[in-house]
C-alpha cells in the first residue's frame, strides 16, 4: 500500500492531471443522481421560471395592499380577512367546487362508455379512434365554447330545430346562460382528458380476468362491476383529477355561457386582476382556491387509495 501511495505522489508532478472532460465523465458515471438532474435540468429550469416564480409572486402579492394606482408593500392579512368577511366569496368557491364536481361526474359518465368501446369493442385501427377523439382539440378552446353558444342559443341549433319540428312555438330560454350550460360545455371540452386515462386503464386489463369471471359464473354486468370497474379505477381517478382541477377555476366558459347565475370564482379572480384592479385581493383569492383544490385532491387520493388497499 505504502509503495503504491508513494509512487502516485511521485508521478503526480510530471504526468498532467486527467483532463476536465475526463473528470466530468467520471463524475457522471459514478453518481446516478447527477445524470438524473442533468437530464431534468431544461424542464426543471422552465418549471422554476414559469411556475414556482409566479406562484411565489402571487403569494407575495396576497400579503400586500392596493392603493388606487400603486401598491403598499407592507405585510398585511387584510386580503384574507376580506375573503372571510364577505360571504359571497365563500359561497362562490363552494358553488364552483360543486359545479366542477358535477362536471367531473358528468364527464366521466360520458367518457367511460366511449373508452370502454374503444378498449373492448374496436378490434383494429384503435389509433384512428383515439385520433378522432382528439379532433375537437384541433380548434381552439374558445371556438368550442362559442360552438356551444351557437347550439344552445336563443336562435341556436336546438331551438330552431325544435321549432321547425313543431315541438315548441317559442325558443327555449333555459338552455343557455345558466350553470347547466357551463357544466355541459366544460364536460364536452374536457372529455378527451377523461377518455384517454380511462381507455389506458381498461386496455391494460388482461382479457383472461374477464374470461375467468365469466367462467366462475358472472353474467356480463356482474363481471363489469366485480372486475372491470375496480380494475379501471386508477384511470377513473386520474380522469377525475384531470377534469376537476382545471375546471374549478375556469373563467372563460362561465363568462361566455354561464350568464349571471353561472358565474364561478374564476370570474371574480379575473376581475380583480382586470376591471377591479385589486391584484392583492385577486392573489389572495387565487391562493385560497389553490389550497382548497389541493386539500380536496389530497383527501380524494388518500380515501381512494385507502379504500383500494383495504379491498385488495
Amino acid at each position, binding site marked *: 500500500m505504502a509503495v503504491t501511495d508513494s509512487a502516485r505522489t511521485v508521478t503526480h508532478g510530471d504526468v498532467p492531471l486527467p483532463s476536465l472532460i475526463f473528470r466530468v465523465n467520471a463524475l457522471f458515471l459514478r453518481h446516478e443522481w447527477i445524470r438524473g438532474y442533468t437530464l431534468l435540468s431544461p424542464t426543471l429550469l422552465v418549471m422554476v421560471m414559469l411556475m414556482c416564480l409566479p406562484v411565489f409572486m402571487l403569494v407575495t402579492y396576497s400579503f400586500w395592499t392596493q392603493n388606487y394606482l400603486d401598491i403598499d408593500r407592507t405585510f398585511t392579512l387584510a386580503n384574507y380577512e376580506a375573503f372571510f368577511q364577505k360571504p359571497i366569496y365563500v359561497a362562490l368557491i363552494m358553488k364552483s367546487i360543486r359545479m366542477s364536481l358535477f362536471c367531473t361526474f358528468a364527464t366521466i359518465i360520458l367518457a367511460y362508455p366511449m373508452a370502454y368501446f374503444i378498449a373492448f369493442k374496436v378490434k383494429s385501427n384503435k389509433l384512428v379512434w383515439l385520433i378522432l377523439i382528439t379532433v375537437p382539440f384541433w380548434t381552439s378552446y374558445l371556438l368550442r365554447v362559442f360552438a356551444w353558444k351557437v347550439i344552445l342559443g336563443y336562435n341556436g341549433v336546438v331551438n330552431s330545430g325544435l321549432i321547425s319540428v313543431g315541438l315548441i312555438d317559442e325558443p327555449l330560454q333555459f338552455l343557455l346562460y345558466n350553470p347547466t350550460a357551463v357544466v355541459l360545455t366544460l364536460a364536452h371540452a374536457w372529455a378527451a382528458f377523461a377518455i384517454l386515462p380511462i381507455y389506458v386503464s381498461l386496455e391494460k386489463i388482461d382479457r383472461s380476468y374477464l374470461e375467468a369471471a365469466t367462467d366462475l359464473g358472472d353474467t356480463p354486468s356482474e363481471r363489469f362491476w*366485480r372486475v372491470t370497474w375496480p380494475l379501471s379505477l386508477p384511470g377513473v381517478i386520474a380522469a377525475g383529477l384531470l377534469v376537476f382541477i382545471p375546471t374549478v377555476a375556469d373563467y372563460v366558459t362561465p363568462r361566455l355561457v354561464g350568464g349571471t347565475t353561472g358565474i364561478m370564482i374564476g370570474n371574480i379572480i379575473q376581475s380583480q386582476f382586470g376591471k377591479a384592479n385589486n391584484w392583492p385581493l385577486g392573489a389572495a383569492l387565487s391562493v385560497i382556491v389553490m389550497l382548497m383544490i389541493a386539500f380536496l385532491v389530497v383527501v380524494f387520493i388518500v380515501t381512494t387509495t385507502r379504500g383500494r388497499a383495504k379491498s385488495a
Partner: protein
Amino acid sequence: MARDDYISMRNTSKHFGSVKAVDDVTFDIGEGEFFSLLGASGCGKTTLLRMLAGFEQPTLGNIFIDGQPQAGVPPHHRPVNMVFQNYAIFPHLNVNRNIAYGMRKSGLSKAEIDRRVDEMLDLIKLPGYGARGAHQLSGGQRQRVALARALIKQPKVLLLDEPLGALDKKLREQMQLELRALQRDVGITFVFVTHDQEEAMTMSDRIAVMSLGKVLQIDSPARLYEVPQVKEVADFIGTVNLFEGAIKGREGDSTIVDAEGLGTVRSTASGAEAPEAGPITVAIRPEKFQLTFSEPETSGNMVTGTMQAAAYLGDRSHYYVTVDGREAPIAVAAQNAERQLSVLGQHHERVWLTWNDDSALLLTA
C-alpha cells in the same frame, strides 16, 4: 357408475375465417378421467378447450357434457371451470376473495363459504395464505389458487390450459404429481392441454394427440409410445428412427420388410392396419437397439455401421450410427446401468446394432 361418454365431441369443427383450427373431431372423455390434449402450438388443442368452456362456439358439430348439448350455453351457465394459462388471479382481490369469487350465487351462507375456502386452502397446501394479495404470490402459489378457485365450485369438468407452462422445471415436475394426486382425490374429470409430451404422459389416463386441427390418436401413454398408429404420433411422442421400406412377404405372425439401411427386417408389431404389400415405414425407438462393439452372435435382426457421434448424459448415453444405404444416422439410446468412465465409442469405430422382432413397428408410409 362412471360413464365413458361424460364429454362427447360430435363432428366438432371450429373455423376462423379460412383456417380450420379444429377440424371435424369426434371422441368421448370418460367420467373421472384425466384426459390430455397434446400437440404443438397451433394444433387446435386450446381452441377445443375453449369450446368446452364456452368461450368459442363450434362452427359445426356439437359438444355434450354429461349428456347435455352445450350449443348456445354461455360460459357462466356451463358445469365446467377453467384454470387459465396465466392463472388470471384477480389482482384487486386477496386469496380468500379470489377463491370465493364464484361462490356468490351458490346460495351458501357466508360462514359456510369461508369454511369451504379454508378447506380449499388446506387442499392446495396454502393454509393461512387467505389474506395475501395476488401480487404477493409466487408462480406456483398462483397456480394453486387458480386451481382452488375452480375446484371450490365442484365443476363436472375442470379444464386446464397449460397451467404448468410458466413454472420452472423442478416445480413443474412436483406440481405434475400433486395435480395427479389431487385429481384422484376429488374425482373430477380433468381435461388438460399441454404441448409437453412428458407432462402429458406423467399425468394422463389417456392422451389425444392433435395436429392441424385433427385428432391423430387417443390412447394411454404407454400405447401411444409403444403402438403409435401413424408416423406423426410416433415422431411427436419421444424420438423414433423411421426407415422407408417395402413389404416382401409374410412368415406366420411376422412380416418381412426390406428397409433402407437395415436390410431385411422381421417385424411382429404393426401400428394401424399394415398393407399386404407395397411401401411401408419401419419405426424403431432408439432404446430398442442394443449396441455392441464386437459382432454379436445372433440369428435375429442385425446391422453394422460406424459411430458418428456419442453423447454421455449421465443416466444414459446417446449414440448416432451411420449405416450403408441411409443418409441420416440411426439414433441409439443406452442406459448406463453400470458405472463407466471411458467406454464411449470412438469416432468412426465399427459397431453392431441388434433389435427384437417386436421392436420394429410397421406404419403406413
